[in-house]
């Protein structure tokens, strides 16, 4: 280990691994990946179900298999990796303080940093779900870790709040391991999970999905004994009289992923309140020179295939940044307009070359709609969609010529016919 590197990548999950390989292939050799677990692979290590890589590899891989493809590439290139190493802080001038058992607390300087720390799960506590605090309450990912990594079952009779992908996957996983999943509750009128997961995880196992429902109370002194579930109104308030009681010993919360940006904040990198990740240019550089972000720490993705794609972009961009002498920017803002929750990147630097894929999510389920990207009154792009849902990230491709001709901010919006 040296005390400075050209590129330091914080996080050795799918984002960090792809960024490292891409940076290496772009010609950079002085790269270090810092990973807090004993192995790289990130959250994919506990995602033993398949469905990963359908877009990228045209195969349906299990999580560890997908991660393995990139781990092999990192090893083949001899890229330096420090595992069991936790980054404690990052400064805006790219000084990294980290800790492990052999080096103790140490600092490393980097010419460029790629943030790839992924995200954490929102907890029951953050939702203020009333009731007791017994054993048997888990976020879906923690339950997944117990089952798939530790080899233990968190419970036998389960109710799940949240029909996002992780909740759906865990409904199936618990059932396959012999538990009874009594219900999956979802506060929204739609599930944010991939359609194929609704079918393969709930329908195929006869697990009821209660849309417009939430858990209002958890019961049990030492261990969960039951939950109360209520229907909610348009303001997401429980409707009196609709209470259902389920006996259960386990409650799983799959209620949102939050990009893990504590280090980012410490480096004074501005974050977007919409994505909860850093504000970035199209090359994934944040508003602090030489600090890049990619993967779930930047925006919560649905498909790891797009995490890899985004991270490869960040890796290449970091190498470009190191070579660049002229750092002047010609900036155009990208804004989320009507019915759009967020657009990424939030800023376009016209001095950077290449096409730009705009990533965004809609705020609700819309049928028969048109999504447009406009600059002033000029329509840059337009796409009709039969259905657009918040749970599926959308993209629009802005070609280089359109980028060069931008005269003002770009607004992406959705209109229903």
């Amino acid at each position, binding site marked *: 280990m040296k005390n400075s590197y050209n590129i330091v990548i914080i996080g050795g999950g799918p984002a960090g691994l792809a960024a490292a390989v891409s940076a290496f292939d772009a010609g950079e050799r002085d790269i270090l990946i810092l990973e807090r677990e004993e192995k790289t692979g990130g959250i994919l290590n506990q995602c033993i179900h398949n469905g990963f890589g359908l877009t990228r590899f045209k195969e349906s891989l299990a999580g560890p298999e997908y991660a393995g493809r990139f781990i092999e590439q990192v090893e083949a290139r001899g890229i330096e990796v420090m595992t069991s190493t936790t980054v404690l802080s990052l400064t805006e001038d790219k000084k990294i303080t980290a800790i492990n*058992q052999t080096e*103790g607390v140490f600092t490393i300087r980097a010419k460029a940093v790629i943030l790839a720390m992924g995200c954490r799960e929102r907890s029951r*506590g953050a939702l203020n779900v009333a009731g007791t605090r017994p054993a048997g309450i888990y976020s879906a990912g923690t339950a997944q870790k117990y089952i798939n990594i530790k080899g233990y079952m968190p419970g036998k009779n389960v109710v799940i709040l949240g029909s996002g992908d992780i909740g759906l996957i865990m409904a199936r996983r618990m059932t396959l391991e012999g538990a009874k999943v009594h219900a999956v509750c979802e506060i929204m009128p739609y599930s944010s999970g991939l359609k194929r997961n609704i079918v393969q995880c709930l329908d195929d196992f006869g697990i009821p999905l209660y849309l417009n429902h939430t858990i209002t109370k958890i019961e049990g002194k030492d261990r969960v004994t039951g939950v109360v579930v209520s229907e909610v109104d348009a303001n997401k308030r429980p409707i009196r009289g609709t209470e259902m009681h389920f006996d259960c010993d386990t409650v799983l919360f799959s209620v949102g992923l939050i990009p893990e940006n504590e280090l980012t904040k410490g480096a004074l990198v501005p974050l977007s309140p919409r994505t909860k990740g850093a504000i970035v240019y199209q090359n994934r550089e944040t508003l602090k020179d030489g600090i890049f972000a990619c993967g779930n720490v930047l925006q919560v993705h649905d498909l790891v295939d797009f995490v890899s794609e985004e991270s490869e972009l960040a890796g290449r961009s970091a190498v470009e940044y190191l070579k660049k002498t002229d750092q002047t920017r010609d900036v155009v803002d990208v804004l989320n307009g009507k019915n759009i929750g967020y657009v990424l990147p939030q800023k376009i630097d016209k001095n950077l070359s290449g096409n730009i894929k705009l990533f965004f999510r809609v705020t609700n389920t819309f049928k028969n709609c048109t999504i447009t990207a406009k600059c002033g009154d000029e329509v840059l792009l337009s796409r009709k969609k039969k259905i657009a849902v918040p749970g599926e990230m959308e993209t629009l491709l802005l070609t280089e010529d359109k980028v060069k001709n931008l005269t003002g901010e770009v607004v992406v919006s959705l209109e229903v016919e």
Partner: protein
Amino acid sequence: MFDVIVIGGGVIGGTLLRELTKYKLRVCMTEKENDVCMGQSKANSGIVHAGFDAPVGTLKARFNVEGNAMMSALCAELGVKYVNNGSLVVAFSEEEKNTLFALKERGEKNGVTGLEIIGREALKNLEPNISDNALCALNAPTGGIVCPYELTIASVGNAMDNGATLLTDFEVVKIEKTDGAYTVYSADGRKESAKTVVNCAGLGSGKIASLVGDTDITVCGRKGEYILLDRESGDFVSHTLFFTPTEKGKGILVSQTVDRNIILGPTADEVQDDVPYTTAEGLGDVLQKANGMCKNVPTYNTITSFAGIRAYSTRHDFVIEESKGNEGFFHCAGVESPGLTSAPAIAKYVVEELLSKRLTLVKNEAFNGKRTPDYFFKNMSVEEKNALIKKDPSYGKIVCRCEQITEGEIVRAIRENPPAKSVDAVKRRTRAGMGRCQGGFCQPSVASVIARELNIGLEEVTKSGKGSRLLVGRNK
């Protein structure tokens, strides 16, 4: 046979136990749960009250002011976090302003120093986020904040280091008096005897009193619900902000904690059972009131909510006295707010004024009141950290990411007095699991360390003892 059995491992019992070890006495604490500090001592506001609330002439008033003066030194000895952040009682009307003057007067009669009424401008300077409807405030600079479970655990641990015995999972269900000694029986058949007994059983102190025939001591429960905000919002307020009290009580407060979270609460509801739980109404009430005290309360940064049941006696004052019918049996019953603040003063009083009449007190020259180590790893300097990691590499492994807690601290919590045997016990000692992800990331690792250290299977690890196993068995 012991000289003293202390029934109840909360902050009252804990500080008392430690005070007792300053003398050459054989002392024992019985605690019905799997760990100390699992009752109201872990689920309260953590305020070191200045002492203007308690009616003049009450034990509450006396011990509050005495305890307040002792708290800083006690915490320094035990390595427990204490901050003298100051209390502000905020008035929103002329009527409330009059109450503030009455509180000031009462406080001064109780011996509180530094009290002054400050106007809107001065209040805004101290607390920029105060509501625009705030009129003025009573500033009580001797008010402070402490971590109540840290204090309890450290007191018991230091007492044990000085020779005290701790018996957990020991629920006293029968007490017999034979030949000038008391024998306490646990629900599982164990028994211990002592010359004297002190009832510090919190919510259960009425039940314990009735076991020796003192049926005139009635203890009831009042539940309080709290909301805790992320440390990221830790600068939202710096003082402890109180509403002007009514007959119903002090009302909710908005305060920083010593760990730099923001705490909102508590509500006050009479309850019959002893299992604390939050309610949608209660939590909604907390949020609504907090929004009345301050502008832009960062409730989006909520990380958890909880409830605690405070024991109060129908006398509406502390019941700290020898049992009328049972010489050598003492009660510390109904110790509700300002119980935490009063704890060190109550301990001193019980030993020096009450027990001294029944026991010979000979100073224990070997008493060492300093609890070591007294640090959180993250607060050490880089040099100190690296010296520690060289000695013990387990300090080089971060287990709780949100609070930066190392494996070394978790192992220490399991091994040192009072030993942690569950995930929540580790949490109270180390803060692992108290961060924004609430153990989502670290719980499996904490559980694995407990399993390894206690040489038990992972499926035997509990959240908080008894029937609270985390897991039901192996997967297929």
